[in-house]
């Protein structure tokens, strides 16, 4: 016991000394690199952002990181277990990707795995955090990364720190205004190593999925179905002519998606049920009059028995079962999770084909107003915590994903094992695409890459194109992509700290109410005659104030 304590103390002292040393080293560099006061560094870099990347790697030897990094220090890495591999491996460092990353960067990792996002929050509540945490703060931490900086969890990085320790990442940040704004707080501090969409096409990929073979049987051309009436007719012919039990199956979560991604709202003049902007002015779809017509349409479908009677209590497994067994002909989902998984599972079933259905529109052939779209920076962010004793090393380690070599590793994995170069282009191997052990593409990919998920690198369109390699998927992708969502999409705004508590409480109370009422309106347990009362209740719950807060954040975003 005593020995252990002594060891601990020794370690602490050693760690403190190294931290002190590196800090000193940094201080020295500050003097030579720039004479400006710290606070202005980020601002000045923003102004001449094009010049910054050329400036940084030039004379200073500390500004480019060479891999593997010399030294034997360990970093602890917090990450939630993923179902994709946790049935076969105990730790991420046991995976080929984990081993390769350690080898290439020269940094030894000690994983701190938690079961899920909730467990990660409990971990965040403990005083002793891992050095690096890969976590979706945006969705799972109240107030996102920016609040986590405020809470003292995340170590915020300034321009200089990044130029010194993560020059490649710094270059990526400066390549696009939206990437930079999406990775920084209002004070222009970078909160972490973000997952960046490399290509606009990657941002899309969600929509309605329909049994193509059934349409063919009925003499319907799937590519021509895009208005609300056509969609209704298709469903009712499924029911009447093919005796389909539940023409359209989905969960209450799916319903939210259909409405929030604007998949079925365009015919009624509603952009999306969610928050959107038009020329910089914020609108909230669920508080607009047009929402009534969307609900009326869904209610009509429901009353005619075309929608899943039990969608409110359904879970995703039921939906999948319905789609695979032929109990249902239409559902909704993402490119990989929905149409991809279903086709793959049923690939040996005769007479089974799926196709993507265009987002519903008012007039045939139109683009839909809105569609599924992602911000440039999204999902999980790898952050350096304040508990980290060697922040420089952590930054250097995380910078690796933004180098060319690191990009290939995170996206494609290990050459010769998970991908081969064919005509100068990386191509996933058979092990990934048609796994000998019968693993799905996603599961196989999870052993060699992080691109199936999120991580500290720039996503690659080639990954998406290859993993969604079934022709049906690629066609569906193009069909779903036919939108004008860019016009209305709200960028990755940051709510002001002073409004944060009010914002999250308003938002959660109102969202709860909206979801509850939506299900009731669709199922008819609440008459649509009460829609005006619903709007009045929203008003009394503070929808005006909510809009105001979002508007302020949006203004701030465009002005930053």
């Amino acid at each position, binding site marked *: 016991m005593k020995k252990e304590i002594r060891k601990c103390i020794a370690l602490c002292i050693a760690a403190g000394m190294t931290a002190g040393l590196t800090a000193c080293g940094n201080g020295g560099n500050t003097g030579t690199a720039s004479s400006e006061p710290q606070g202005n560094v980020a601002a000045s870099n923003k102004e001449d952002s094009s010049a910054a990347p050329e400036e940084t790697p030039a004379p200073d030897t500390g500004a480019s990181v060479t891999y593997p990094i010399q030294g034997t220090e360990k970093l602890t890495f917090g990450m939630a277990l993923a179902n994709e591999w946790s049935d076969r491996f105990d730790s991420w460092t046991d995976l080929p990707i984990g081993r390769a990353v350690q080898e290439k960067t020269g940094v030894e990792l000690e994983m701190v795995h938690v079961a899920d996002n909730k467990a990660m929050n409990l971990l965040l509540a403990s005083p002793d955090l891992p050095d690096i945490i890969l976590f979706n703060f945006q969705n799972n931490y109240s107030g996102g990364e920016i609040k986590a900086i405020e809470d003292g969890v995340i170590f915020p990085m300034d321009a200089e720190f990044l130029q010194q320790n993560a020059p490649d990442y710094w270059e990526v940040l400066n390549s696009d205004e939206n990437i930079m704004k999406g990775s920084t707080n209002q004070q222009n501090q970078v909160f972490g190593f973000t997952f960046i969409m490399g290509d606009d096409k990657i941002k899309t990929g969600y929509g309605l999925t329909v049994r193509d073979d059934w349409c063919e049987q009925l003499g319907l051309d799937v590519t021509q179905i895009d208005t609300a009436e056509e969609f209704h007719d298709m469903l009712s012919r499924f029911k009447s002519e093919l005796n389909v039990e539940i023409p359209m199956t989905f969960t209450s979560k799916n319903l939210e998606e259909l409405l929030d991604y604007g998949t079925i709202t365009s015919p009624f003049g509603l952009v999306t049920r969610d928050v959107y902007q038009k020329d910089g002015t914020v609108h909230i779809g669920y508080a607009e009059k047009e929402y009534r017509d969307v609900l009326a349409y869904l209610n009509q479908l429901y009353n005619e028995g075309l929608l899943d009677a039990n969608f409110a*209590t359904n879970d995703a497994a039921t939906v999948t079962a319905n789609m695979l067994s032929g109990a249902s002909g239409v559902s909704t989902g993402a490119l990989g999770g929905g149409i991809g998984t279903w086709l793959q599972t049923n690939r040996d079933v005769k007479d089974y084909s799926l196709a993507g259905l265009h987002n519903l529109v008012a007039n045939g052939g139109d683009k839909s107003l809105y569609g599924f779209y992602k911000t440039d920076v999204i999902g999980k962010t790898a952050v350096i915590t304040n508990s980290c004793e060697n922040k420089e090393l952590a930054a250097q380690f995380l910078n690796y994903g933004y180098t060319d070599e690191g990009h290939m590793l995170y996206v494609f994995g290990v050459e010769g094992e998970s991908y081969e170069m064919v005509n100068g282009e990386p191509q996933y191997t058979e092990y990934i695409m048609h796994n000998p052990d019968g693993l799905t593409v996603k599961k196989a990919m999870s052993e060699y890459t992080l691109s199936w998920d999120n991580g500290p690198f720039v996503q690659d369109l080639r990954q998406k194109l290859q993993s969604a390699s079934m022709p049906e998927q690629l066609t569906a992708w193009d069909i779903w992509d036919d939108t004008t969502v860019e016009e209305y999409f709200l960028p990755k705004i940051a709510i002001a700290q002073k409004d944060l508590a009010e914002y999250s409480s308003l938002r959660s*109370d109102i969202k709860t109410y909206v979801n*509850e009422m939506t299900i009731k309106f669709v199922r008819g347990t609440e008459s649509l005659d009460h829609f005006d009362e619903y709007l009045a209740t929203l008003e009394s719950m503070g929808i005006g104030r909510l809009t105001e807060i979002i508007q302020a954040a949006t203004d701030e975003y465009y002005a930053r």
Partner: protein
Amino acid sequence: MRKTDNARHAKLPAPGKQSKQSFGIRLGKDLKRNYGAYLLFLPVALYYILFAYKPMYGILVAFKDFTPAKGVWESPWTSSYGFGHFISFFKSFYFGRVLKNTLVISFSTLLVTFPAPIMLALLLNEVRSTKFKRTVQTLSYMPHFISLVVICSMLRLFVADSGIVTGFLEKLGIVDGTYSLLSMENFFVPIYVFSGLWQTVGWNAIIYMSALSGIDQGLYEAARIDGAGKLKQMWHVTLPGLMPTIIMLLILRIGQIMSIGHEKIILLYNEEIYSTADVISSFVYRKGLLEYNWGFSTAVGLFNSVINFMLVLMANQISRKTIYMGLW
């Protein structure tokens, strides 16, 4: 032990003299004299200090804008002199609803699941065949050992559109069998209460069974001689014999009126039936754990505890006044 006892009796000062000495001095003397007893008591005291009293400083979180990284002390106080969370809970759009649902579910659960084990115990007590008695007992407390998650997924299947319960109700003409019962507001409370009955009745009957075996057989004999039938015996001998146990358990149960566990609720409810199914604890769960508003959820938890505590005091007082029995 006996030695120390004797010693204490021997040196016990006169009552008048004792009160003049301060508590500290008296305690010191007593410590010296009965150190053995204090030593035995020490682990228990430590247990309560460490696990019941020390964590109480966490209640401070209810008055603070708590962030884990800053800790309890460093986190700033909330608005309204630290009462911000309480005010926002009372003013919340959902306050009335979750309070009402909590009380409705709690009282119906109490009404149904409290007398049931007593009756089961009384009935089993009259059963003469030990084999039958044991079988019934084992079967009835079996659900107690099934994990709640499993219980709830079973329940979801039972009340699904094609489930066994739904089918039964359909035969009776109560529902039409197209929807899961859990998507209908009116069914949530019955489902919750009666599944609770199924889960707990056997287990809770055990304590009454043991109380029954403690009743003096001579009383029954005397009653029989006086010409009392089975029912009269039950009414005049068995029930009075059980009364202390019943009262004790009832008072304890009343102390839990405000706290319905969120686990079973969130495993069963869905957004559509929030209007009857959302209770304080599930509301707190969503706020506190899903939105990470620790301060708010602690404040609501504290509010619950205070109400529960007052209810226990009241119940005890009433029972002492009316039937001269109480916990203290």
